[in-house]
């Protein structure tokens, strides 16, 4: 933008508007903090003040496990968006209901002794119960709340979904009470740490990730390789034409909700094994995060939702430690001076070449040089509390550079707005 405003005959006149200078400051600042964070973290590692390799691995594995749940829930948001073109905010509650009912099944099996003696059978029963509950809830929501609004403007079902979400939360609180309910411990052989591809992880984590990946693969095959899946894609492309081709649109929409609900049910049980504590508000934050993951990966895109979930989980786990921790590393004065000089040179070159990316890099280098020369460091207190800040900032940055998400939206020709 800026470069186009430079007048041809006089390279000296940069015409800044307030918005332009603000955007420039944001670009320079984000490059500066990210580079400083990365380099600082690596430097701290070499100085022996950083995290150990084992700690990094542990964070990464935890991020993958958390992210696989986000991914499973995100599928429900993404599929409904693909077919109906609105965000079903009640989907987090579909997940929560599965987790709560799954808890009661798990608790009953634990009392009966099956949980301890035949864990695999027990977890399969709980899984079926949870999938059934979530699927049933999702379908019920569609029938009661969304079907009557099928031809209404898209904001109407969106608002309805928020109302449904509040309704389900409060109904569950009244039915089962506000206390946190904790799934029984998985058996010892799952709780012990095992070494797997150089990572020390618990069996539970492996089970969670494997089950998530299997479900995602199953869903992908379902959508890409079965007639029902083809019908879903056709409805997503264009409802009217699909109906003309003899596809029962209502049936396909119900199937979409059911499949999304089933994925949420799987996520609920993985949650029950991994984190174990569930209550009536369990669905709220994971729902928001999963929605974020769906947008990150490109809403409407099934593979994008899965990968977006995994990515969000990993960014959450590693982000604060990769970016924020590094700011406590002081840039050496000599390096600062070099960066200052190089930065000024790069800015001049960038201006001559009229490439704003290079100017931004140069300016960031100057800022970093100044930070080095003045000995500026930032000790971030409560590092882990900022993980949401890091992950949402990552989302904003991704959307600035790729507005359709990392893997692109998949929408029909129909205008979605």
């Amino acid at each position, binding site marked *: 933008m800026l470069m186009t405003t430079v007048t041809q005959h006089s390279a000296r006149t940069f015409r800044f508007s307030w918005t332009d200078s603000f955007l420039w400051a944001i670009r320079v600042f984000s490059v500066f903090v990210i580079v400083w964070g990365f380099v600082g973290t690596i430097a701290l590692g070499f100085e022996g003040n950083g*995290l150990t390799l084992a700690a990094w691995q*542990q964070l990464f594995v935890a991020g993958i496990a958390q992210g696989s749940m986000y991914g499973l829930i995100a599928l429900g948001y993404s599929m409904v968006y693909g077919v109906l073109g609105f965000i079903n905010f009640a989907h987090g509650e579909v997940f929560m209901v599965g987790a709560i009912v799954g808890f009661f099944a798990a608790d009953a099996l634990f009392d009966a002794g099956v949980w301890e003696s035949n864990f695999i059978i027990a977890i399969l029963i709980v899984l079926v119960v949870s999938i059934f509950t979530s699927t049933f809830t999702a379908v019920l929501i569609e029938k009661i709340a969304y079907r009557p609004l099928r031809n209404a403007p898209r904001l109407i079902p969106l608002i309805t979904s928020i109302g449904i979400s509040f309704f389900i939360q409060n109904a569950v609180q009244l039915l089962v009470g506000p206390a946190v309910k904790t799934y029984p411990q998985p058996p010892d052989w799952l709780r012990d740490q095992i070494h797997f591809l150089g990572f020390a992880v618990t069996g539970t984590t492996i089970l969670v990730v494997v089950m998530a990946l299997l479900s995602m693969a199953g869903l992908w095959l379902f959508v890409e390789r079965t007639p029902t899946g083809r019908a879903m894609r056709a409805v997503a492309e264009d409802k009217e034409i699909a109906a003309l081709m003899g596809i029962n649109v209502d049936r396909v929409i119900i199937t979409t909700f059911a499949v999304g609900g089933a994925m949420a049910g799987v996520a609920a049980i993985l949650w029950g094994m991994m*984190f174990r504590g569930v*209550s009536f508000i369990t669905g709220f934050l994971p729902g928001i995060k999963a929605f974020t993951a769906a947008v990150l990966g490109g809403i409407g895109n099934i593979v994008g939702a899965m990968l977006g979930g995994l990515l969000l989980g990993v960014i959450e786990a590693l982000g604060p430690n990769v970016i924020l921790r590094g700011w406590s590393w002081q840039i050496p004065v000599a390096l600062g001076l070099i960066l200052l000089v190089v930065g000024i040179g790069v800015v001049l070159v960038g201006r001559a070449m009229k490439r704003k990316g290079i100017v931004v890099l140069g300016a960031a280098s100057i800022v970093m040089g100044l930070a080095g020369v003045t000995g500026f460091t930032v000790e971030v207190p409560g590092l882990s509390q900022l*993980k949401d800040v890091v992950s949402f900032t990552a989302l904003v940055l991704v959307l600035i550079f790729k507005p359709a998400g990392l893997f692109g939206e998949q929408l029909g020709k129909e205008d979605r*707005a």
Partner: protein
Amino acid sequence: MNATLKQWLPWIAVGAVAIIVIVIIAVNSGGDDTAIDTTTTSAAVDDTTTTEAAEDTTTTEAPDEKPEPGPIGAVEVAAGEKIQIRSLQAISGDVAFLGVPNQRGVELAIADYGQIKGHDVDLGTGLDDLCSAEGGQAAGQTIASDDKVIGTIGTSCSGAATAASPLISAAGGVLISPSNTSPALTSDLQGTAGDSYHVGYYRTAHNDLFQGAAVADFVFNQLGLTKAAAIHDGDPYTQGLAGAFQAAFEELGGEVVAFTAVNKGDTDMTGVLTEVAQASPEVLYYPIFMPEGGFIAQQAKDVAGFENVTMIAADGLLTDNFMELPESEGTYFSGPNLDYGSNASETGTNADTFLANYEAAYGEAPSAAFWAHSYDATVLLLSAIDSVAVELSDGSLFIDRQAVRDALNATSGFAGIIGTLSCDEFGDCGAQRISVVLHEDSSDIATGKGNIVFEFSPNG
């Protein structure tokens, strides 16, 4: 153009959600739009008068003429009408685990207490402090504007009480909290009123002034550990407690090597635990709530560096659903002494019968520690009303507001489930002793709650 619309769609959606959430919050908290002047001068009546008047008025013959109302008015309950009290708790949202058991404690206490001089007690409906100043403000105005309400049990959260207490005080009511622990609401226990103290405020909860210091004392002197870490969750209560611990521990000569926080709603604690382990502390103090506290206990054992760290939680986790976790074994808890033994309220209910009734009525164990405080607060209010209510010959009841306060001020040696209640001049009616217990067996919670390893009493 279509592409532009598509790329903005998620943001339109997010914007719509934000607006809806704001509207919902506004509707929930905007019970009364007319701004009520919250200055309390008119009600700042000297409460040290006629402390002994309370107990004696009950046995006199029913007079025909109604007595003169006291300086802050009186409530008349006509024959056949109910006596109005209220409960103001955080009964929805993420603090419902604290407010709901409080609310139920009030309900059970009213049921156990029965009628007051032939009149039923009515709790009304629908008051929620939302665990925030805004919620306390809105509900406080609702209560203050209803001249039939004599007293209120609440709030659940100190933040809500700072807003509700002046309103209810100005209206001549009383507010008895089962779970506010902020020192600002009463006094520093040395005779100086807190910034947010208002006449008519009482509580059966402990004053939290010394909990941080007690834990620091325990860790440094009793356990002999010098490197500590603390985790809070950003809540004023947990942050204040963790901060008080840090200050006291450093004063004693210990070192707080990590002071950090989680978010409410966080589930994966690997990050924060890694951050703490990095500083290699000997002890971790995490005065937070469920479920985050449970996640920390569960996940700590998988994080390298936590093998020998002593874990200390606070009263927020001194609940059955945390102590049932096998991973909670070996955890120390600071907080009020919750080993109630056979202490019985004047209704005859003790902890065992209360919990049995609670399970039978609501199908779960209480999800927070203050159910007994709530029960006792309610019985305290009801018996104060009982002792000052005057029966008139037409069958109506005359209840003087100042007399209710006087009766509460005069509380001494009152039998409750939590122990013997005596109110000081700033409304602190609960026991002020802080104890540290060691929980060793997740299948035997009662023993854990009673296994006191350290006691700290602020006044020696």
